């Protein structure tokens, strides 16, 4: 099974190589990307994705678990010293985070929640069904992405609200000109002290997971500046979710020490 998929992938790669010689449209590039990574149908069948990853910071190897669902529910679980901190948790109603000091859940602002609600449906990414989502996609041209030729696409999403003001929400995507896989993504930081800077995410180490090709390495940081690598150890599709983890709790979402009597 795996072997045949790999052959198909290579065949597609060859076909896409020919495609890259010709002029492209944004949709053609997107089609090629999804074909190269398993096909639109296969991607549309995915209900959720779970990433088991780690980041290295100053000698700390921090385990991370990220879950994203088609219906918008999501969480990121970061573990320190056996205790779990939950971030960007959305249970279908509330958006919340664990406070690092009290280890208790606290709701994100209404503005964050309404901005998050705008992204429900952007699964597994905002591009797959961008037309249905009412987004606008443009091909900006070919550009070097850290020395590798790439097609640059601009996605304009629904406007979001930042500090009470409506602002346009745009993202830029770089697809490698030969293989059509996604190399990176850029967007402007909209709020906080880093406001106005361009955030860059890179993707690499594509590997197959149940017929889909998924990046197993990412970096996140400021464009042209420092970035934080994220090493993905495992990607699972359509996992059975522990729904209780996402529900906004009254008390800390910390795994308590063993019960005592």
């Amino acid at each position, binding site marked *: 099974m795996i072997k045949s998929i790999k052959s198909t992938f290579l065949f597609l790669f060859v076909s896409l190589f020919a495609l890259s010689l010709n002029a492209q449209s944004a949709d053609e590039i997107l089609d090629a990307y999804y074909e190269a990574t398993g096909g639109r149908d296969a991607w549309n069948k995915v209900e959720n994705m779970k990433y088991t990853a780690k980041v*290295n910071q*100053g000698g700390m190897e921090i385990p991370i678990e990220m879950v994203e669902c088609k219906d918008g529910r999501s969480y990121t679980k970061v573990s320190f*010293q056996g205790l779990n901190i939950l971030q960007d948790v959305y249970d279908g109603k509330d958006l919340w985070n664990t406070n690092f000091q009290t280890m208790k859940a606290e709701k994100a602002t209404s503005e964050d929640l309404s901005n998050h609600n705008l992204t429900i449906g952007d699964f597994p990414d905002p591009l797959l069904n961008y037309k249905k989502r009412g987004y606008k996609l443009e091909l900006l041209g070919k550009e070097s992405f850290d020395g590798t030729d790439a097609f640059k696409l601009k996605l304009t999403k629904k406007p979001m609200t930042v500090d009470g003001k409506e602002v346009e929400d745009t993202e*830029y995507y770089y697809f490698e000109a030969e293989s059509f896989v996604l*190399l990176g993504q850029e967007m402007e930081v909209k709020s906080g002290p880093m406001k106005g800077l361009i955030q860059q995410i890179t993707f*690499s*180490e*594509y590997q197959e997971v149940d017929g889909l090709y998924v990046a197993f390495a990412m970096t996140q940081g400021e464009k042209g500046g420092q970035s934080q690598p994220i090493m993905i150890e495992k990607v699972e599709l359509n996992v059975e979710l522990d729904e209780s983890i996402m529900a906004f709790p009254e008390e800390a979402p910390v795994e308590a*020490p063993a*019960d005592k009597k």
Partner: protein
Amino acid sequence: MKKLSLLALLLMATSLLFLSPISAQETITLKGKELFGDMRARQIGPALMSGRISDLEAHPNNPRIIYAGTAGGGVWKSNNGGASFQPIFDDYIQSIGTVTVDPHDPDNTVYVGTGETWTRNSVSLGDGVYKTSDGGQNWKKLPLDGSERVSDIIVHPKNKDVLFVGELGALWGDSETRGVYKSEDGGQTWDNIFYIDQKTGCAELIMDPNDPNILYASMWEFRRTAWSFNSGGSKSGLFKSVDGGKNWKELRNGFPSGKLGRIAVAVAPSDGNILYAVIESEKTENNGLYRSDDAGNSWKRLNGDFGLVVRPFYFSRIVVDPKNPDVLVKAGLFGSISRDGGKTFKDPGNMHADIHDILFDINDSDRMYFATDGGVYRTWDGGSTLDIVSNIPVSQFYHLALDNEEPYNIYGGLQDNGSWYGPSHSPGGIEARDWNRVGYGDGFRVLRHSSKPIIYSEMQGAENVWRYDIERNQQKTIQPLPVKGDPKLRYNWNAPISLSPSKPDRIYIGSQFVHMSEDMGNTWKKISKDLTTNDKKKQDQENSGGLSKDNSGAENHCTVFTITESSLDENIVWAGTDDGNVQVTKNGGKKWSNVTKNIKGLPANTWCYHIEASVHDKGTAYAVFDGHTKNDKNPYCFKTTDFGKTWTSITTNDIKGFTRSIQEDFVNPDLLFLGTETGLYITINGGTSWSKFTNNMPSTAVHHLEMHPQTNDVVMATHGRGIIILDDISPLRELTNEILSKDVHFFNSEPFTLIEESGFGGSSTELQFVGPNRNRNAKIMYYLKKRHIFGKMKIDLYDQQGNHVKELSASKAKGINIVNWDYFTTTPKMAKGKTFTFGGFTAPRIQAGTYKVVMTKGKEKYETELVIKYDETSLVSADERKQHHEVTQKLFNMSEDLAYQVYQMDEMISGVNHLMGSLSSTEKEGNELLKKLNTLKESSVITTGDNYVGAAEPQLREKLAALYSKVASGFVPPSTSELENLALIEERFNKGKKELEALNKGPWAKLKDVGAIAGVTFPKVLSKTDFLKKS
């Protein structure tokens, strides 16, 4: 079908097989990012004095958004009402004339007209008009060919596709790209709708606030040469169009007769009939502010104050309050504010001198922004008190020098901002407080004596050359003075000073002669004749300026501009002059040879900006020429290997823009760094091809650059973005065709030094610029022929015994990759409690030694070695390091032992509960055991509270972690107090360990036996090894 696809694949693979190997003759030429990969420049500012700001622009509806165009540092955007700014135009030419926000789409569409219009001698050049449609994230150049300086861009208020551009045009020569341009298709095509001649450009273009058909254009006849400036002529004038630019009529009613100069003009936004103009004319008594109340038909002179008429070429801007037509501000030396319609003026409050633009807040006119030679200033009280924006590092260096301290310091002089030195590294980053002033006025060359605490600096044409004793805090001026028989000494505005590589006290200064002192400037002798062309026609600066005399010294010409003594032979001295001579002496100045005529392909009298004497060969030198003051923007760089008898051009079409300075690598003679008007270019093959370096390196003018011999850093003096450092260029030395053809190549590196420092960092606020420090991590540097996209790639590090020390993420870019290792291994696995123990977030550092590096790339493995050494200057001894390491390791192991003990306790607690639930007969013994286990656990680790002020009393884990962190995070061995504390903790640790063993072997073993007989099963308890592996 399947067979066919496999065949196609096979063919494809075969063809690739034949194509991919690089034949011996084939040269691989990589450009830009595909060559330099992860190498990134480091912009260290400074921003405390900022630099010249040329234009300010507001968002029409959102007062939080402000744009600042700068003289040489690009466009900066504030999203927070001017509290701080960020650069948004780094990839393009950095000299900015104007910034215009499209009123139809102000959040996204912005136009930038490049080419500053404040035409001082050192002004940079632009190359046209750019447009962004996404608030500055991406830019497109509009096809307005030949553009050099854009004064204004106006978007028609009713039609976003109709654009008007005021084109001042070329400063240094004739040009037909001047006047007013109009586009009706959003900038795709342009018509020149108002043109006078090749000498007269549009200095200002404004539109009536109510009627877009009414335009005013200030046309200016002007010209600069390297030795003179002319403002004004019969073609200058103020013109008006009432039909959208089709026809233009000069406005003259009330203006003085005769020639006019640069005219500043403004229309009151709140009343289109009220206009102000500042006129430069033949008679000074006619210069000044004129006002019209009938839309320009007639004018009345109101005021000729100094602040209004001073240096029109530099200060021709009037800004009227958007709400009140009688409040206006005029740019100037200090600026001038009128609140009575222009009758009287006063200076605004204290700020940097030389104000070029003013911006009123769109809602509150008490809030204003000023564009000065020293940054953006803001006021909240109508200009009475002012505050500099502290995060715009657009300082304009002319030259720089480095010293041999660790970390090394950088010395340099700035346009209108004095001379300074500051460190290349400082705890917490390079802050404003790290920079030290060592000169006033316009600063240029600043040099550090190689062995004494002496700094030389200068200002404005050697008006002062200071010898400053840092330790004594004493300065003395030492410039050579005329002596009997001397003609007038001609010093360039940026007069050359250089030091001898062989004689520390020797110093050279250039006028039209080369002057040399062997005693740090006390005694001077001329070691040359006049080395220039001594063309008298180029020495009439007293009459320079045009209608307004402007003899600042900036146009002094026929001067020596660069002096270099060879580091291989003190008798070899090279000198280059601003009027195009290259001269060399091989006997310390007794005889000079003018070798200029040997340089084929160099236009006569092209300014010799820099001569680099080779460190590899006595007869080899590089001469860099800058022709832009003759309106020649071509790059010129030549190499000689025979003391100037013959020269070879080493520039190629790869280089865009004119050249100013070159730096030869100290190791590889084919590796050269070229400073140009548009940034840094690098060749790895002696100039056969050049590649622009763009990684975190703006397209700013690089006026001068130096290499540090110990760190291999290339340090650049940019004229618009401060000091920029390219750290450790050593990987570039190895790049040959053979290496470029390899899939993977590890670069050699010197041993990395583990610096034993632990300070407190800086004190800057988030609104202050802090220059990033040199990355002191160990670096694994390698070349990848192709970006790694598919399959696993990682880097593992092993010690000499083969133990795995660390896994690192691999960098995967095409070209040079750099993976950093911060010398840390991994944190200990800590016992799980109710809260964190912060000491447990500390990881031990590695010891010095040789480490094996294994790169896994797909199925392939590549290996190299990495050598780490201790800092030789550190005061920590080897024995102390050994003790530090042993105690750190002991505490680390105890922490992990305790973690496993607590895990065992939790497993036992869980097991006892499980047993009691299954077998009620065990409840009595079970509860007794639980009580003991819980008591033991509560003394081992915190089981209540939170991570802040709700914290519980620390237990064994917390005490152990605190001591571990205290020892491990430092570099020195533990103190007696720490060792005594360790003994106390160890006693408690051992006691707990024994108690747990006793409970495990005693009551828990018994209960498990009882359970086993009854058929109760228990989950498997992990071994310690497996527990520690589990994340």
